[in-house]
């Protein structure tokens, strides 16, 4: 496989900056059609965004988390759904890089190369019957963001392990083996096209599934990626770090949308001719800005933690693992609050579908009810650990 020159952080930022107008122009179409526009996906492929966490062996970039964060913020500043799908694809790219090298050959050396899109979710559903040379899986999985543009899916289901216990497995399946149910009729993140996928007695060969206990032990199957800083470390680190930029970018987009309209707007039924001169506005924008800045502080701190661990190969302390979750929750909370301020200060003219701010608010609302983002859950977990209790989830 030919070695690919990996672009610098600055170059990737420039490339993404260049495609932002395309993503922005297609955002309304995506919201109306409940999926990403082909043009947006193609633009992200062209910029190299979708190969950032693919193995370098196949032309991927194995990017560090600070670069991922830069890119994710810019994507979401243009279109939240594009960023959200990208995060979902990054997560599964990273997951597949821990499967046996022969599986990676199938996934990353196919017609799409390192730009292959793999959708997937973490929640186990359905059931798997272990056979002599694999597993036969049936079930349905909701919330498959980016499924319309994906070639593979990583699914999680439950099967009986060698000890006779029920244990989750993660399996890599081609989309052609699955049925797609177009049930994505939702309030927020509409353009992510997060449809349900169904498997009916799908056979998955042994090398394409992993027991979760093995993943939790960081006992990964890939020999080729074993020493890559990008792929060592627990799933909680990378999965958290790739999951903050989209929120910050959305909040910045709300700020952009607000400031674009603010100067010409009077405060109706008051003497204020310009919203920009209203002292209430000043406190609102300051409050929102400092929340966005604080969100980025947590995101940068988390990215630094994960990048440092990936470089040093040091284990995470329980408190550090809990902070990974806390950072995602707090970024979600702060960005939600910032967007709420800008949205509520935008006047009745802002509720038209063509106005970005109302879409941003709906997207952020959908993000905040996501099981991994929900602030209350992450706060509780972090607080438990700070108080010296054991975590109440395996996902840490």
């Amino acid at each position, binding site marked *: 496989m030919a070695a690919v020159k990996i672009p610098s952080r600055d170059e990737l930022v420039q490339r993404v900056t260049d495609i932002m107008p395309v993503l922005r122009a297609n955002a309304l179409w995506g919201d109306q059609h409940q999926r990403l526009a082909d043009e947006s996906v193609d633009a992200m492929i062209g910029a190299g965004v979708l190969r950032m966490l693919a193995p370098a062996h196949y032309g991927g970039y194995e990017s560090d988390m600070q670069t991922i964060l830069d890119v994710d913020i810019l994507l979401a500043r243009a279109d939240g759904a594009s960023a959200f799908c990208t995060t979902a694809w990054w997560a599964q790219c990273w997951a597949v890089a821990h499967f046996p090298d022969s599986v990676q050959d199938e996934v990353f050396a196919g017609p799409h190369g390192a730009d292959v899109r793999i959708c997937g979710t973490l929640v186990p559903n359905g059931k798997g019957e272990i056979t002599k040379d694999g597993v036969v899986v049936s079930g349905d999985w909701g919330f498959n963001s980016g499924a319309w543009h994906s070639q593979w899916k990583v699914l999680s289901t439950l099967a009986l392990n060698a000890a006779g216990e029920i244990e989750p497995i993660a399996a890599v399946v081609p989309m052609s083996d699955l049925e797609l149910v177009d049930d994505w009729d939702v309030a927020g993140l509409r353009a992510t096209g997060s449809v349900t996928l169904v498997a009916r007695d799908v056979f998955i060969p042994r090398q394409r599934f992993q027991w979760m206990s093995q993943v939790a032990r960081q006992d990964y199957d890939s020999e080729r990626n074993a020493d890559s800083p990008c792929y060592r470390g627990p799933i909680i680190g990378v999965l958290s770090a790739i999951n903050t930029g989209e929120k910050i970018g959305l909040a910045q987009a709300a700020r952009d949308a607000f400031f674009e309209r603010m100067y010409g707007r009077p405060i109706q039924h008051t003497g204020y001719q310009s919203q920009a001169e209203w002292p209430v506005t000043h406190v609102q924008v300051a409050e929102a800005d400092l929340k966005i800045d604080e969100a980025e502080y947590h995101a940068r701190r988390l990215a630094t933690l994960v990048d440092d661990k990936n470089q040093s190969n040091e284990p995470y302390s329980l408190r550090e693992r809990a902070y990974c979750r806390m950072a995602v929750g707090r970024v979600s909370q702060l960005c939600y609050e910032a967007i709420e301020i800008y949205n509520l200060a935008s006047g009745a003219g802002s509720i038209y579908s063509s106005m970005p701010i109302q879409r941003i608010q709906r997207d952020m609302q959908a993000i905040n009810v996501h099981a991994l983002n929900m602030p209350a859950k992450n706060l509780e977990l972090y607080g438990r650990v*700070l*108080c010296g209790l054991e975590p109440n989830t395996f996902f840490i």
Partner: protein
Amino acid sequence: MSVSQAPPKEELVQRAAKLVPLIRDKAVWMDENRCLHDEVIAAITDAGLLRMRVPVRYGGFESDMTTTANVIAELGRGDGSVSWTAAVWAISSWMVGMFPDEVQDEVYADPDVRICGILSPGAMCMPVDGGYVVNGKWSFNTGAQQSTWNTNAAVAPTPDGGMQPVMTLIRISDLEIIDDWNTSGLRASGSVTTIAKDLFLPAARVLPMGPVLQGQHLSQLNANAPIFKAPFMPTACAKVSAVALGMALGAKDAFFERLPGRKITYTSYENQSEAPVTHMEVADAVTRVDEAGFHVHRAAQALDTKGGSGEPWTLEERARARLDLGAACQRAKEAVDVLNSASGGSSTYRDVPIQRYERDVTTLNLHAILHPATNLELYGRIVCGLDSNTPYI
């Protein structure tokens, strides 16, 4: 005059951290006696912490802002009033560095000199032969009874018949002290009222503030020192923001110290630490403390990065220094409020530290320069394209 070697940055912070047990030990006494304990002042002096913002040529350290802020925050982990007073001393000892060099020779002759100061112009300077005669009154004069010098804002007539803000440099022994410091918070800061009556000041000890606020000063010898090239308000803001952080860190320590073994009375919880409500509170408060730290360090870094370069500060950068100050105070107060409210009825006793942190951080948040709403409004004005509505930026 011997020029001492400045200790490494980390060591100063560690020295401050080592003082925390002593400071905590004296905190109740100080709260009751409305001044700092002599042993605390002696320990701060011995640790060299009064020299951080004194020119190197007098034996000072010219410490950068990150170090200074971290030291002030560590002292605040011990006690809010100690931290606040140390911040005031650090601001005013820096302010003396704006004065003509011969004035500095007199004041910094002792590099551990304690100089307090007031930013609100509370007096009038009338020009006379060779100087000015000052009359006026300054309230909230932190540490006045435990300082030697005082930098006090005033106004003076200009040749064109107008008025300009000036900074005076006065010996504390020349002022009358009115002990009116009976307050709910920051009690140990001893922020009494001081009065000047027909007090003569040589011209060199009256400094026009307009240029100082714009980052110009009268000292030749400090002209190239990075810390003295920095603008006044961001410098002062970063120092006092660290006080808020220190109080929040102190409250956090105080909360976790009492948590083990505490029940939640009239409920079935045998351990407060096992209640999910506690987990929410703790996570929320600890995160806000971290965020207060982010604001303090961002403000300090802006000074340390731009300090040496001599690059001018944009209005938005100046406003951000004020925003970071307001946000640090706001987040610190939110954190302390959450922890204080979770500390139970027994926490209201005078010898339980958390109630003192709460009184102190509330008082801090009421200060005219530190008040979050004032700072947010100012930053918001600038971001919306309006002018500043204060010269204190």
